[in-house]
Structure formats: C-alpha cells, structure tokens
C-alpha cells in the first residue's frame, strides 16, 4: 500500500462570526458581511489547496471539550442543527457531515496503544460542536471530504500547559503515524484562535467593523510574535513558549490544538504561509498553512 501523506497542516480558527458573515444557506441568521480580512484569508487558503488532492480532513476543535480523555466522532454521518450557545444570534447552522470512521479508528487505536485515554463517540443524538462546523464550513464549504473530528482534552485545566503539551504532542505523533500507515492523503487542522480575550459586549450590529479591534496591545504583541514564528519556520519556539503564550494571551492554544498540529507536522522548520489575520470580538485569529507537500525533503 502506498504510504499516506499529510499534504498540509492548517491553523483555521472557528469563530461563528465568519460563517454568519458569509451567509451560506445552511445558516439561519443573515449578515451584511463583516470580518472580510479573515474571510479573504480563508479564500486564499482554499485557493492554495484547490489543486491539491486529499482524501480526508483531520480536525481538532477546542469547542468539543472533554475531561475524560480525548474523544473521536465515531459514526459515519452526523446531521442536525447546531446553535452556538454563546452567539445564538449569529450561528444556527444545519449541518450534514461525513466521518472517515476507518481513519478515525486507526488514530484512536494508536493513541490508546500509546497510553492516552481515548473514547469513540457513537451516540447518534450527539450534536457536533460549532467550532468543528465553522472551521469545516470555512475550509471546505462543499463538505465533500470526510472528516476525522477529535475533541479537546482539557488536561491544561486539570494539570498545566506543560502536561497538556506532552499529551498533545504524543497525540500528534500517533495521528501522523496513523495517517502515514493509512495510505491516505490528509489535511490536518487545528481549529483555534490565538489571543483569546473577548469583548463582553456586542455592538448593535454585530458585523459593524468600526467596533472591531484587538482587546489590548499586549494581545497584539503576542499574536504578532506567534505569527513571526509561523512565518519563519520556528515551530519549536512556539512549543517552547506555549506556557507563557497560553497564560498571558489567554490563548485558545489551551485546548491543545496548536501543539497537536505542530506535532502532526513533525515540528516544521520550514516557513508557513499566513493567509490572513484579523480580530473577532477582540480575539486574535490567524489563518495559516504549512504546505507539507512542498517540503517532503525535510522529512527524508
């Protein structure tokens, strides 16, 4: 069997505002646009991958939060209505997504063998979290690729960023191994933002861009520091500084997605492509692609 391949790794944040602003038919609320810098960033990401063949998307969402290990969606299809409990005025999305159960099982089994606590989620009534759906939609609006959906194990809350990273780096390694052994071509995605301090008020028109900006200069500095590391191939420094970044920027990397992503990519030393950066209700969001397909030599 041909060896599988990770064709790209992506940081692809999930604020529901982006789907809201796109006005897709699946979402009930209607917007007058907004957050264009990030939506155009997603356009550039999609364009970058439009000629790249792949079989599945493996996605870790910080909004399926589990405390008893890491969980995986384990049924072939999920179809329902997702209402964001925080921004129900913006996101009420009718989803219909397919799961690559075979690849999911391979990752699950390898993780279990590596000593991680894992569980398959096989309850048909389960509602998929809005983070998965938002990133899934913005990355692939056609929904024509099956997904592997991984929960965010809140080990950072229980222990520390260091323990979280240890677990997520291990999960990333086994994810990579399972993909390579599967013979499939895969895109891996971490669905998290960067700095994550929200405004606690919402303007009368949520998409009023005159009200949108980062919550503080300190958050901006942290975001730019991380983006500089992305663009200069310094993934190891990101991992090294993850405790400080997570604490000081109240970063959504606390969910483990970014550490897991960098581990699946074998801690890349080549530059990533920044497709877009913008703020959403004060939080910092970057759309970033690591084009692993172009850097196979680094993995020889």
């Amino acid at each position, binding site marked *: 069997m041909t060896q599988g391949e990770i064709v790209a790794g992506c940081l692809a944040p999930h604020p529901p505002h982006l789907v809201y602003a796109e006005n897709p038919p699946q979402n009930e609320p209607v917007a007058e646009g907004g957050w264009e810098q990030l939506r155009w960033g997603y356009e550039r990401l999609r364009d970058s991958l439009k000629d790249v063949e792949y079989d599945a998307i493996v996605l870790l969402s910080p909004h399926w939060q589990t405390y*008893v*290990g890491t969980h995986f969606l384990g049924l072939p299809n999920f179809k329902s*209505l997702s209402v964001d409990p925080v921004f129900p005025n913006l996101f009420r999305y009718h989803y219909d997504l397919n799961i690559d159960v075979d690849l999911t099982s391979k990752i699950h089994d390898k993780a279990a063998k590596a000593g991680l606590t894992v569980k398959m989620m096989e309850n048909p009534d389960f509602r998929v979290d809005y983070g998965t759906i938002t990133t899934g939609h913005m990355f692939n609006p056609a929904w024509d690729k099956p997904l592997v959906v991984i929960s965010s194990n809140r080990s950072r*809350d229980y222990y520390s960023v260091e323990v979280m990273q240890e677990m997520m780096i291990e999960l990333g390694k086994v994810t990579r191994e399972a993909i390579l052994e599967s013979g499939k071509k895969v895109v891996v995605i971490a669905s998290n933002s960067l700095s994550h301090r929200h405004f606690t008020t*919402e303007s009368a028109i949520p998409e009023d861009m005159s009200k949108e900006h980062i919550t503080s200069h300190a958050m901006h500095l942290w975001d730019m520091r991380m983006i500089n590391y992305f663009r200069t191939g310094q993934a190891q420094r990101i991992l090294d500084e993850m405790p400080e970044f997570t604490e000081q920027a109240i970063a959504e990397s606390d969910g483990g997605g970014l550490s897991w992503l960098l581990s699946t990519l074998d801690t890349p030393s080549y530059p990533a492509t920044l497709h877009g950066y913008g703020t959403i*209700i004060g939080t910092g969001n970057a759309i970033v692609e690591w084009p692993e397909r172009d850097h196979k030599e680094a993995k020889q």
Partner: protein
Amino acid sequence: MTEGSIVGSFIVPVHPHTVLAPEQNEGWQRLRDAFDEAAQRIKDADADLLIIYSTTWPSIIGHQIQADPNPEWVMVDNDFHDLGSIPYSFNIDADFAHAWNVANEKRGLKSRTVNYTGFPIDVGSVVALKLLNPDNAIPAVIVSSNVYANRSETTVLAKSCLDVIKATGRKAVAITAMSLSNRMFTAPIDPKDDRIHSLKDDEWNRKILEFLGEGRLEDVGQLSRTIHQQIRVQKVVAFKPMWWLSGMNDNRNNLSGEVLAYEAIHGAGGAVVHLDPTPSGAGDKEYDEDDVEFFSGERNVLDAEEEHELIEDSVAPTSSGPELWEPTTGEHSVNSEAAPKPVGMYPHARKVGDLLYLSGVGPRQPGTNAIPGGPICDENGQALDYDIKAQTKAVVDNITRILEEAGGSIEDVLDVTSFLVDMDRDFSGYNEVWAETLGKVGPTRTTLAIRALPTPIAVEMKVIARAPTTE
C-alpha cells in the same frame, strides 16, 4: 399583590448519571433519591417559579437568560455520551426572563434573552429540570454563568432577579446547578469504584456542607475564592454560584440548611442541599465585602457612543437636567476628576484655615453622570422607583473622593447637613447606610426634608471636614 419572595433554595449536581444511570452506583442512586425528595419539597412549598443558575452554561456577552417558552431537543453529554441521551421539553417563563433582563440593565449589567429553536440547553439545567420538575408543572427560568463575571456582577445579577420576584409576587425557588469539587477522574472508571477524586477535595466538600447544613450560606460565599483555589479546576473565574445563591437569599447566614445527599460523580463532589429561608438562629456573619447594588465595572469595552447614550438615558436623564460645569479653580479650591461635575459655577471644596467646606455632594457618578440606584423621576417628571441606600452610599463615596483629593480621608468629616427629597420614604434607608459609613466616623449631623434637588436625586450632603495639615 403580596410581595414575592424566595421560598427555598437548592444546590444540585450537574452530571447526567443521576438521570441516566442511577442504578449503576449506590451513591448515584442516593443523589437521585435526594433529587426526588427535593422535588417533593418544592411542591410542598407551593412554589410557582424555578430559577436555575447553571455553571455548565458559560456565556461571554454578559449573562444570557433562556426565553424560549418551550425548548425541546435531545441532550447528549460531551463526556458521558455513552450513558445515553436525554430528550427534554421544558416549560420556561418567558415573561419573567424578559423582566429579569430589563432589571439587569437597570442595575448596570449586560444581559440578553435567548429564544432560538434548537438552542442547546446545558447538561446542568437539563438534569435539574428533569428531576426537580418532572411533570413541568412549575415554570422555570435558566440563566448562564458568565465566564468573566466576578463577585459584584454575580451578586447584582441575583439582586435584579429579586427585584422582579418581589415586583411580580412570585414564590420562587433558587437553584444552582453545580459541582462542589469539580475534579473528575481523567480516565473511565468502573461505576462501582467511584469516589471523590482526593481526600483533600472530600475534606473541603464536607466543610462546605457543614456550613450549608447550618444555613451559613453567606459564609460559603465569602469563602468562594478560597474554595475555588483549593478544589476547583481553574477554568473559570471563581466559585461563583455561591455568590449568586447568597445574593438570592439577601446574603443571609441564618437559613435552615439540610444536606440531603453528598456523593461522588466520576470523582467530582455532587450534593443535593436544601436551604430553607426560615431563620435558624445561627450566628452572625463576618461580612467583609461590599454589598453591591449596582454594577459599574468595566464592561463597556466597545466604547460605542450609542451605548453611552443608552446608559445615560436609562439611569441618568441628565439631558433634561441642568448644565454641567467645570469646577471653578479659585484660590484654596479643591477639585477632583473622580467627583461628579458641578451644576453651577463653584468648586468641589474650599479650604479655609484648618477646615474644608464641601459643596453639596450628590450620588451622580463621575464621567457617566449615572445615578446608582436610579433617578427619582424620568425626563418627563414621572416618578420612578429608586434605591435610597444605593444613592446614599454613592454620596459617601463621592465625599471620600473629594477628601482624598485634598489629601485627607473620610475620617476627617466633622459636620454633615443632609437633604432628603422624601423624608417619609427614605429616612430609614439613608440612616442605615449612614450608620455603616459616616456614623462610624462620628460627625455631627442635621437631616432636612426639602422639595427638590437640581438633578433627579433623592439625597445630598453638605460637609465640613478637617483640612489635612500641610508642611
């Protein structure tokens, strides 16, 4: 109409085991039995409203209040999805939800109602309503737990809820859906092996329950931050449900408490506790934090002009009031940026010899001109309900700021002349705040009834203070 009140309060655990699998563990079954007992007590109390503060419904944009009259769906827990699904169809009091939302705004809080088909009711609320109100006979209201809220915001949230309960004559039951210690086992366990995650968590839980069993709810509220540091996973700010529940009970410490059950649920501390408002005769409390009436924290971070206007319109109709002036800056004048602007050409204070003479000080807030406790009338002169205690406290705070600007403190106050626009209505509340503040300093005092003040406020004070010595 009789004034409404809280007829009982309950603390209940959030995880779905008590609904879906009580038979798998003796402790889970005891919690389930306690839920059933609590449901019966709620019926016996003739309650007509259940109000749930749920720690498993986090929010960011202020607090959210469920206002769908009949939310229906199937709930599956993020972690314990293998236990099964919980279909629900609840009876929500949408009118109360809307009234609470309005009351929140009046007390300076951001909140909003939510009414959307398919809105995911959180696991804590689903478990509580399924077991405490199995036949949906009693209408309910659910409020979220704001991830950024701290004590003052959470306390004021309770007070605005009480405003509506009292005004609508409801016999309400206050419920917090919460764990005590919330550290679960991070791996699956055999149900029969369930226990509290650690001895330390168990000891803290038992101490909390000892307090609650004695009806010392406010004491638990006062310990909230300590409890959070000791036995809570650090993912949210503080052990805040106890602040809310204590606020719902007027921050009392002499309730009649009873622990109906205490058990582990996958390592977390789960308890069903009943707090009856009947005074227990328990000891007094050590009350070491402000009793907040109005939330004026930094929440308007968007800094939108229309939002400032909205606040001013709702709490301080100064557009119809007198023009505001910059304080004059003559010789020996003392003025403070932290005090409200004058309504005429005068300074905040003037130093003469060893004395400071303050211009009349009201409760208006510097910057926003808002009136804590609300104005006494709207811009058309129609009388409004207002809180004299909040206004009086704000007056004392403004006096303090001016004296501090002069280099002194509230301890320097020597003589006060107070003006009330409604002596019959307000003297008692004014006097109560006085006793807690200036009364402890000991100035002489004269209180006069007058017809009106220049702005829609109920109280103003004229102060003479000792001037701080200068080198």
